[in-house]
């Protein structure tokens, strides 16, 4: 069991050095988004992202709402979320953080673009304690589903899919 500290922005060589099953502690500035906002982010041009002050290169997107109840992973396999993974990886998102299993096509897209998928527990009381700062980055009309920019300290996660390998395919052998 190895635990690796990951600081955003994430360089490609950091992803290259990670393996399925690695424990991560993620710190720095991250984005959050889920069903409602991620398709809107995918539809934005690079110029529009820049105008909004959003930089996806080396970024992490946590599949969560941000509300008075805190944060916690939603199911990444929800159609609008999973469909965002390939185009957002192409534009520089290096880590997609959520929960649940991914389709084979999504795994391939992560590999092609040098990105990974990590999972974390729905531990809202713990996770919310790790937020140092929070602001809406785009689409404020979506409320808790808006794109938020958070500064976080040591968010725990496990690498679930990277380099074409998936922790979900290793279950029966280990289970």
């Amino acid at each position: 069991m190895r635990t690796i500290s990951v600081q955003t922005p994430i360089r490609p060589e950091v992803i290259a050095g990670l393996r399925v099953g690695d424990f991560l502690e993620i710190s720095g500035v991250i984005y959050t988004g889920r069903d409602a906002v991620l398709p809107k982010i995918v539809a934005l041009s690079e110029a529009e992202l820049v105008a909004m002050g959003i930089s996806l290169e080396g970024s992490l997107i946590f599949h969560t709402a941000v509300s008075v109840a805190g944060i916690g992973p939603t199911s990444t396999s929800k159609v609008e979320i999973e469909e965002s993974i390939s185009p957002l990886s192409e534009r520089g998102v290096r880590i997609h953080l959520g929960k649940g299993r991914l389709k084979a096509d999504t795994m391939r897209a992560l590999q092609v673009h040098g990105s990974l998928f990590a999972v974390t527990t729905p531990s809202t009381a713990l996770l919310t304690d790790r937020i140092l700062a929070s602001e809406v980055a785009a689409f404020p009309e979506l409320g808790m589903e808006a794109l938020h920019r958070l500064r976080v300290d040591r968010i725990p996660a496990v690498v679930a899919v990277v380099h074409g390998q998936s922790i979900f395919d290793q279950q029966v052998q280990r289970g």
Partner: protein
Amino acid sequence: MGISPAKIKEATAEALVRAGSSFTPGLRAAYARAVALETDERSLWAMRQFLENADVAERRTLPLCDDTGIPHVFLEVGESAEFGGPHLGAVTEGIAEGLRRLPGRPMAVLGDGVQRIEQSQGLSVFSEDVVPPAFLVKRIPGDRVRITVLLLGGGPEIRAKTYRIFHKHHLETVMDEVAQWGIEAVRELGCTPAVVAVGLGRTHFEAVSLMLEAMALGDLEKQTPLEQQITERINASGTGPLGLGGRISVLASLLNIGPQRASGVRIASVRTCCGIEPRRATIELG
């Protein structure tokens, strides 16, 4: 003298906050059993995260999960209790008050029917606008009233299933189907270890009602042989907490068998509750 609506409102609000911010003793005991059995380090890491989160949430009265769930109410009303319209209104007000205090996630969708489906008018900013569906009411002996508040998260709702089983009058056929549905749901759930709630009835409504009653009243510390069988068969899949692998995909099962129709079909409702559920709390008045 009967129970005052004001007392019912306060009790309901308290129950909602407790349901949303603490593990029941039964759930804690189920985790303790699971941790003692598990050897996989990733599985243990995930389960310890669930437990640590519960400790913090309970100590500071914080939501266990940011998906604070859709509140559901299970009422048990004594046959000689005075309980009518004002009391039902007080339960509704208590749910709203509980959501304000927890606080619940403001996730009520605004607009008329079509607008709500398309989520085109945005969300309410008020936690208390997440209204409960119709209550389930059960008559019990005596003059007391028990109010159970459950908070049902979205992940398990995506994977829950209510459907018919052509069982040819064999229990094994029903158990095979229930176990298979559970295996499929647990694989996709993402926030395992699960508690599997099962209702077996004559209609879809009855099966779901029985499943909800199992979540509301079922005992995670006393497992029947059939409940153990469901748990063990799903655990053999090796899915593990968060899907990371390991021996524990399911902590326990809650099976509720209701009246049955003279037929070769049974209606089953299976809900794989996520690792913080059943989020429930009961308050007894009278």
